[in-house]
């Protein structure tokens, strides 16, 4: 019995050290990234220019879905990287999140437009269904299915560590 008690004193700290070692040295973990696969929820919203309605049929194939707003400062930081992706020939669809139309259009005129289609989500209804918690957030969509989700600014490091492995694995783009 004494042996059992003594070994607990030794084993308990060892267990803690192992746990923290595993947790703290986990290189693959990128907080904010999520690889849950799900369908894009059903929606019907106007585009940013208010010229037509966009629904699930309008956005087919594989693309990047980027949630942004003109009031979002991190989106401004992220913007040059998105322009870069667009120049590489990657299709980006924008989800304008809780934003004034005129502000958003002015923002794009000023800095450039990386988006092929922009969905105007004034009330954040589609964003809520997607599980968006704020802006910017980025989804990787393959044939109508979300395969990767990242909360926060996408930059070179995030792109190559969170998105590129999935893109290569699934052969998207």
């Amino acid at each position, binding site marked *: *019995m004494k042996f*059992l008690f003594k070994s607990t004193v030794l084993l308990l700290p060892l267990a803690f050290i192992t746990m923290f070692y595993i947790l703290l040295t986990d290189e693959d973990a990128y907080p904010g990234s*999520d690889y849950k696969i*799900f369908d894009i929820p059903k929606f019907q919203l106007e585009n940013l220019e208010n010229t037509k309605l966009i629904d699930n049929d309008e956005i087919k194939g594989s693309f990047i879905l980027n949630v942004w707003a003109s009031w979002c400062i991190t989106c401004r930081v992220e913007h040059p990287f998105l322009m870069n992706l667009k120049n590489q020939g990657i299709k980006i669809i924008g989800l304008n999140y*809780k934003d004034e139309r005129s502000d958003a259009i002015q923002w794009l005129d000023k800095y450039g437009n990386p988006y092929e289609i922009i969905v105007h989500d004034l*009330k*954040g209804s589609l964003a*809520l*269904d*997607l*599980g*968006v*918690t*704020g802006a910017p957030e980025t989804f990787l969509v393959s044939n109508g299915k979300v395969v990767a989700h990242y909360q926060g600014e996408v930059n070179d490091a995030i792109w190559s560590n969170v998105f590129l492995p999935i893109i290569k694995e699934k052969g998207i783009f």
Partner: protein
Amino acid sequence: MMLYGVMYSCQSLKKREYFKMKMFYIFLILISVNISSDSLYGLENELNETRFNNLIKDIRCPKCTSGSLSSSNAPISEDLKLKIASMIQEGKTDQEIKDYVTSRFGKESLYEPEFNNSTYILWLAPFVVLFLALFIFVSRKKT
């Protein structure tokens, strides 16, 4: 004398009117809170209201480090609360609402984890440890 009397009655009438008005305004101020009070999320009956309050206490705000929906005024929490209220109005069960939230914001959005294949260790471990401790305690006494 008569003139004085008329003047007096006029004055007293004025006073009475004034008093009436004053009472009316005080009454108005007193009931104004009740008149303008309404359920913020448009829930009609008390049962739904309690269900709503219990749900938002049990669901984590997606954007906060640790805080329930009820404690949060973040825009996303407001959206989620409105959605939960409208789902209650549509007659959805608590389980359906929790499923909706967890499917979007992850299992960790529930403060009380569900009992299923991946969480049974979490739920049963304390009882197992307790049982083991008891077992060791009893077996030690005998020796």
